[in-house]
């Protein structure tokens, strides 16, 4: 196991980059029955990263420390880039200790040095200060072709150097793999601390690497099921703050929120339609939990399923025409697909007796889900054409899979000992890592859409 960000980073980081979003400001909320609050940035729930399974077929790359002509920058940009690329599972960065020399520009590179280290790609760069801004100049080089693939200067405020580094990682990743990078995205997750009746629940958002965490909500009643709006500006979630479950939508920039449903019984599992105008959800207002779709503007509800069993955990197909959901109409939980306009449900999963909480890949061709097999509850994927199901995680009690917007990774909840942590695995299952929190339990990760 290699620890990437072994040190606990406890500083208060502020972001000012234009493409980043300011989160909710301290908006006190009046509620019934339980206390909760919405507050501004805190850095107390950052996650660190341990690689638990590396990818032996990862592409070797060397990310040379950037020459720091700006002087004393608070972030090691090249290290952030290297960590991003390693965490993707697609790359294996060369350790710095193995580098003979540390060029900062393609002009100074002797390609033979890097060939002898088996690096296929090389990233060099430098930083300089200009008018209160930091200029980050980087180049991506093809070692065997001895050619420059990318060269760019990025301007960032000194408080958003991690954002600049994630941007650079996105460019490098896309140049080499042809897949859009998702390093500048964010994750939402739920925390709990304490035991029994003294448990405190929190809803956070953080950068995709677990850093820069910001609190969205805390409560002494459970919080569940965070889901990003397709524009990345809002979260839907379930809160028990009134001592009954209700679905809320909260604007992350302003902290403003609205209660969408508080019907008798379950109000759970909100999922945004791809156009952001509707929410699918599970409600038990008519008896058993059924799938409904709410038009957010009009609050009109349309019932989608109709059975005497449990229907929950809806998710949309990327084209918005159908929903997948978990149903136990066959006896145990299995995943079904049904048109949003009704009609018959088609059963998708047949392998094993427990398949639940499905999510579709961005191209709609692969179903990611929780499957119970010989290894307990694991993240699995099923090719929808062939119907073949394979487990991709190697974790304890995996739950709540959420797919990166570029489809390359799945983040999920798991356990380390008896503590809830987040795990992530590449969509092919080759590389896996963990994002433990410094304290308390973390669960229900939700990967944001692309934010830039």
């Amino acid at each position, binding site marked *: 196991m290699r620890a990437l960000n072994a040190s606990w980073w406890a500083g208060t980081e502020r972001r000012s980059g234009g493409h980043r979003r300011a989160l909710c400001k301290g908006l*006190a909320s009046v509620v019934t029955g339980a206390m909760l609050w919405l507050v501004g940035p805190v850095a107390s729930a950052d996650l660190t990263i341990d690689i638990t399974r590396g990818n032996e077929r990862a592409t070797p790359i060397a990310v040379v420390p950037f020459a720091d002509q700006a002087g004393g920058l608070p972030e090691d940009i090249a290290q952030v880039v290297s960590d991003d690329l390693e965490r993707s599972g697609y790359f294996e960065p060369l350790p710095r200790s193995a580098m003979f020399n540390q060029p900062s520009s393609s002009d100074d590179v002797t390609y033979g040095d890097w060939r002898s280290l088996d690096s296929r790609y090389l990233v060099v760069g430098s930083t300089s200060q200009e008018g209160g801004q930091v200029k980050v100049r980087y180049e991506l080089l093809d070692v065997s072709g001895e050619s420059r693939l990318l060269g760019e200067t990025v301007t960032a405020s000194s408080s958003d150097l991690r954002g600049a580094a994630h941007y650079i990682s996105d460019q490098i990743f896309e140049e080499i793999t042809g897949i859009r990078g998702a390093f500048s995205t964010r994750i939402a997750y739920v925390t709990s601390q304490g035991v029994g009746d003294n448990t405190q629940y929190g809803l956070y958002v953080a950068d995709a690497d677990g850093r820069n965490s910001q609190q969205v909500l805390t409560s002494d009643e*459970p919080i569940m099921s965070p889901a990003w709006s397709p524009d990345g500006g809002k979260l839907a979630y379930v809160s028990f703050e009134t001592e009954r*479950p209700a679905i809320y939508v909260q604007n992350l920039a302003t902290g403003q929120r609205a209660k969408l449903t508080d019907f008798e*019984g379950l109000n*759970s599992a909100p999922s945004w339609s791809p156009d952001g105008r509707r929410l699918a959800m599970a409600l038990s207002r008519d008896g058993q939990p059924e799938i409904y779709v709410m038009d957010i503007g009009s609050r009109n509800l349309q019932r989608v399923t109709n059975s005497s069993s449990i229907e929950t955990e809806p998710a949309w197909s990327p084209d918005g025409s159908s929903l997948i959901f*978990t149903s136990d109409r066959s006896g145990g*939980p299995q995943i079904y697909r049904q048109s949003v306009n009704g009609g018959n449900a088609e059963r998708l999963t047949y392998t094993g007796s427990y398949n639940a909480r499905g999510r579709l890949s961005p191209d709609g061709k692969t179903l990611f889900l929780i499957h119970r097999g010989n290894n307990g509850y694991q993240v699995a994927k099923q090719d929808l054409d062939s119907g073949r199901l394979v487990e991709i995680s190697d974790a304890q009690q995996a739950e709540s899979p959420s797919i990166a917007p570029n489809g390359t990774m799945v983040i999920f909840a798991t356990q380390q000992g008896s503590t809830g942590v987040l795990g992530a695995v590449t969509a092919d299952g080759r590389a896996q890592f963990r994002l433990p929190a410094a304290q308390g339990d973390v669960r229900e990760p939700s990967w944001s859409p692309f934010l830039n």
Partner: protein
Amino acid sequence: MFLKPYARSLAIAASLAVLAGCSSTGGTQDGSAAGSGSGTMGGSGVGTGTAGSGQVSGYGTDGSGQMSDARIPEVRTIYFNYDSDAIRPEFESVVNAHAQYLSRNPNASVVLQGHTDERGTREYNLALGERRAGSVERYLRLQGVNPSQVEVVSYGEERPAARGSNEDAFAQNRRVVFAY
């Protein structure tokens, strides 16, 4: 009456009247929050807070002296087998006692809180917890309890009574709590 256990020492209180004809003002209040409420389906406390103030709210009531002929049964939690919503024979007497209490006290009401162990997915477990509490609700109804006295709220695996990923913890967490 039942004092909600997570009304902690810091609690700022709200009051409520659970039983018709029984008004009470419970708990303590501090200057920054207050609450009041009345109803038949549990209490409502209202509080505002800002991060770090350490305020929490809860509520408690003392309904003593107004009950006619019965006290709320002492045992308020029953446990379930794995993947089952069947009321185990050894807990039938507990449910019967609550049925009797509710029948004799038509103004009393109870929230049946359904819980599951941690295995499986959270939202599906939320549905299973509701099914578990629903099975108790149906049993109470068969015993003649007025449905309007009973509400079901499922917490799924979100409020475990015991921590740990072992059979003992799982067994303690598969439960329905009678919350008055």
